[in-house]
């Protein structure tokens, strides 16, 4: 009897867990549906939606959201897509990529070597909660970007705006302050003497020793040193001299000496993993207010609808940086905003509010739901509801053809185009140039010999791969810059064409010789480690296949690592690969400093050239287009000569539309890289 009771109890318990499990979302807690009932509802649904004029919801198929729906902080393009609907920018891009007025206007004038941008807003703009839009809202965005603790995507804080540096540097993590102040500092306004003493006498040396030890361990792993105590040998391998029997601390001191006390530089250059400052107590990462600079002098409010931004130097994309910015309601986001503390702003990342065509309703079940904003300044959108649904890349076309979604962007391929043509009655598509390009990069630190790099370049057989993979949908490019940028040198000639014989010559020039079927130098075989993301469906895969084959013939080896994209990125950033296959996207100007400048954050090839740096600086300040284009061509030639980047292809992006639900005639006449359905969403209609 007891047992019977127990079994009942257990059943109840199990049901309870089931219910709890399904509590918050009533996700199909019962068994599958009665199939007849299912089909019935399908029929009904089909009937109701095929009646003319009854589509009231536009569904856009997109990919995974991070859930950061704030124009100030979003990272993923898909989150950005949503933000574009909810927020308006002062100016936007026209089909040709030129900045044009939207909710306002921008003008620039030169005055005594300074460039003053004047931004004016239209009168009468309102946020969706009814509050009027003022210039304060734009200035608020500037201040968020410029905040010392800002960690989003925008580079606004690095611009050469009057007073910007003072503002940004007015606060810094404690360690940075201490470091800059040095041990001799006697100003204890921001921290006390004990802290300083403890930092320099205990914590820094400890962290330094840990930092050095990491290098030693690395050397041990790599076989350069015998064991973790063998600091002297490891230091030797790292290029420093430490006496026999020295400790990790000695090693660190040796490094400090070599860098003349520039610990920041030391940490960046020598790190075997952790940054020196990561090894410090987390208490040191807290921000310290250094000065009471609370304003950026270059940003001035003129009246409620006008402000000026003063640049110290010329910037070719200054207008975009100033005016292609969203209007974020200060009264909403900025309520608790203080300099140095963005948490209150970030807290609203999941509840955006703006003055765009649509307002945010909800984000659940992988769907972002938006509703039309009747007060939108360009007129209320014609489609009352807009939803962004997360869909799988592989099913995008089917979803369009099945009528589940209305607009999406599958990766363009000949088959997709063919399928679209086949279903011309049900779907339409547009092809635009992708503002980016695919390339194969070489790490100049790991492959220091220019001739080896050149040899590798000569083994890259790009044309057949790109042609067969993309057909008409992509072209082989010869310089590392996307041709959608006006400055791209369209008549550039190939620098390295596919020629295994020549490659071998280069290798021989580099000192390699073929011995017993192996290509060796100083007894070591030429082995190149290359990384590629998702190789099974990558246009560059055949290039590597051919390359591996040719290198094997020569007696060298190409080790291909097929990696997940995130891992590939990490390995490239960590400098662990000799060569990698990647692509750049979303380029809007000819500024290459990030990728090729010595201080560029994306200079993964670790090739540093003063000549290139100088050219880049010059380009950024050359306002005349032709002059600039010539400089760009020169810069790109230099990069090609260094054999660090092999541009591979520039492809087209595709957008496909559901012709049954969508009134295709209301789509933009000219869809380009810079201009698509979203650019005039308020005009879009459904059947």
């Amino acid at each position, binding site marked *: 009897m*007891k*047992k*019977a009771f*127990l*079994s009942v109890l*257990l059943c109840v318990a199990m049901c309870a867990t*089931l219910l709890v*499990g*399904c*509590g918050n*979302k*009533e*996700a*199909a*807690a019962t*068994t*599958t*549906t009665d199939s007849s*009932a*299912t*089909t019935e*509802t*399908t029929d009904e*649904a089909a009937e109701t939606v095929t009646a003319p004029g009854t*589509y009231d919801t536009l*569904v856009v198929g997109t990919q*995974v959201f*991070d*859930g950061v729906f704030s124009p100030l902080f979003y*990272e993923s393009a898909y989150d950005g897509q949503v933000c574009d609907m909810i927020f308006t920018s002062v100016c936007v891009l026209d089909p040709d990529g030129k900045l044009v007025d939207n909710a306002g206007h921008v003008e620039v004038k030169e005055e005594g070597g300074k460039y003053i941008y004047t931004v004016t807003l239209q009168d009468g703009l309102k946020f969706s909660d009814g509050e009027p839009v003022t210039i304060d809202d734009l200035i608020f965005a500037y201040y968020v970007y410029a905040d010392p603790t800002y960690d989003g*995507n925008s580079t606004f804080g690095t611009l050469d705006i009057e007073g910007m540096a003072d503002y940004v540097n007015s606060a810094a993590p404690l360690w940075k302050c201490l470091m800059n102040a040095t041990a001799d500092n006697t100003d204890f306004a921001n921290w006390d003497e004990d802290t300083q003493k403890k930092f320099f006498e205990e914590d820094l040396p400890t962290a330094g020793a840990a930092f050095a030890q*990491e290098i030693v361990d690395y050397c041990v792993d790599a076989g350069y040193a015998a064991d973790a105590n063998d600091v002297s040998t490891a230091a030797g391998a790292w290029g420093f001299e430490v006496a026999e029997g020295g400790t990790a601390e000695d090693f660190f001191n040796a490094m400090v000496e070599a860098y003349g006390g520039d610990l920041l530089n030391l940490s960046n250059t020598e790190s075997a*993993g*952790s*940054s020196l*400052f*990561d090894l410090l107590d*987390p208490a040191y*990462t807290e921000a310290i207010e250094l000065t009471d600079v609370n304003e950026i002098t270059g940003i001035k409010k003129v009246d409620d609808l006008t402000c000026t931004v003063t640049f110290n130097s010329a910037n070719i994309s200054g207008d975009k940086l100033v005016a292609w910015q969203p209007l974020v309601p200060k009264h909403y986001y900025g309520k608790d905003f203080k300099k140095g503390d963005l948490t209150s702003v970030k807290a609203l990342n999941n509840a955006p509010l703006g003055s765009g065509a649509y307002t945010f309703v909800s984000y659940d*079940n992988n*769907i972002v739901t938006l509703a039309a904003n009747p007060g939108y300044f360009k007129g209320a959108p014609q489609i009352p509801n807009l*939803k962004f*649904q*997360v*869909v*799988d890349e592989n*099913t995008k076309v*089917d*979803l369009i*053809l*099945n009528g*589940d*979604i209305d607009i999406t962007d599958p990766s363009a391929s000949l088959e997709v185009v063919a399928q679209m043509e086949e279903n011309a009655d049900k779907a339409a598509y547009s092809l635009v140039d992708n503002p980016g390009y695919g390339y194969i990069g070489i790490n100049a630190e790991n492959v220091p010999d220019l001739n080896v790099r050149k040899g590798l370049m000569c083994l890259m057989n790009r044309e057949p791969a790109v042609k067969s993979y993309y057909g008409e949908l992509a072209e082989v490019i010869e310089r590392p810059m996307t041709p959608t940028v006006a400055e791209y040198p369209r008549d550039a000639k190939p620098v390295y064409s596919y020629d295994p014989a020549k490659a071998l010559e280069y290798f021989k020039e580099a000192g390699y010789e073929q011995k017993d079927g192996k290509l060796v130098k100083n007894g070591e075989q030429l082995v190149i480690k290359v990384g590629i993301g998702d190789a099974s469906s990558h246009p560059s895969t055949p290039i590597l296949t051919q390359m591996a084959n040719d290198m094997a013939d020569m007696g060298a080896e190409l080790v291909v690592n097929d990696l*997940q*994209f*995130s*891992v590939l990125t*990490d390995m490239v*950033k*960590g400098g662990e690969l000799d060569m990698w296959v990647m692509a750049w996207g979303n380029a809007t100007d000819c500024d290459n400093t990030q990728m090729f400048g010595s201080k560029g954050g994306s200079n993964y090839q670790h090739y540093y050239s003063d000549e290139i740096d100088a050219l880049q600086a010059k380009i950024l300040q050359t306002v005349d287009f032709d002059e600039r284009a010539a400089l760009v061509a020169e810069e790109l030639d230099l990069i090609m000569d260094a054999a660090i980047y092999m541009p591979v292809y520039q492809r087209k992006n595709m957008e496909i539309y559901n012709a049954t639900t969508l009134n295709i005639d209301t789509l933009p006449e000219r869809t380009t890289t810079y201009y698509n359905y979203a650019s005039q969403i308020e005009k879009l209609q459904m059947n």
Partner: protein
Amino acid sequence: MRQYIIKRVVVSFIVLFLVSILLYSIARSVPGDYVANVTGGNPNITPEMQQRMRELYGLDKGIFEGYVSWLKDALHGDLGTSFKYQKPVVEVIKSYMAPTFALAFISMVLEILLAIPLGIIAARKQYSMTDYTIVAIAIMGISLPSFFFASVLRRWLSIGLGILPISGMVTARANYQGFDLFIDYAKHFTLPIIVFVINGIGGLLRYVRTNMLEVLSADYVRTARAKGLPERKVIGKHAFRNTLIPIVTMVGGMIPSLFSGAVITEGIFSLEGLGRVALDSVYNGDIPYLMGFNMFIAVLTLIGTLISDILYAVVDPRVRY
């Protein structure tokens, strides 16, 4: 009985403890520079979070010391902060578990409801055409990877015939409420559940069949027949109750595979559940979440085994604790 349950719970805790050691040591074997690498390039991940992870797994401490502090945190429900979601792992699990649970449990119930009768029929007609057909089809279900089935079935049912939705959890276009919403959910879950059931039923069915064969040749079945019981009752009562015993133990063991399967099925059908999040976290190097997810499944498995063991005692009077 109560004593037995207490004993089982204690043993479960011991096992959980061992599982945690194992999981912890896996987390520990993540190389330090990998943490820095994976997290360093991602602007979402603050140094605090990196530090938090190092602290959590005690990468800076000795193994023992590190484990103790990790265990302490884990016992307080702190399994770390998900890199991707920037929320405590426990919270992430909570917010994504509904679809996974719905999927897993409905599939499990269906599997059991289908496998038992079919297994019995196959056993009754051993070596007959019926037997061959049932067994062959069931084994076919476990002979193809689930992603393969999912793709082909979707091609056929969703894209070809348009009977079922292609992916997602609800129809985005419609704004269903109440019961319609429920039906909409059900429609979206149908295909994933079919894939689950096809993939899971074979093992169970075969198990039922083998056990039934064994039971059918048992003396007490002959006794039941000798009593003059109609065949229906011989099978339905005497044989069935006895096959139930091993089946009950098997059901508890199904949990890990159900959740493992969720990783694939949810990914393919764009269902926002734990499995899909797990898959994403691999791509994001979100080790804290993966660890938490594994720990969560381990706990579920142990609960499942515990329930199985107790049910075992309920269905088999010979088992006395």
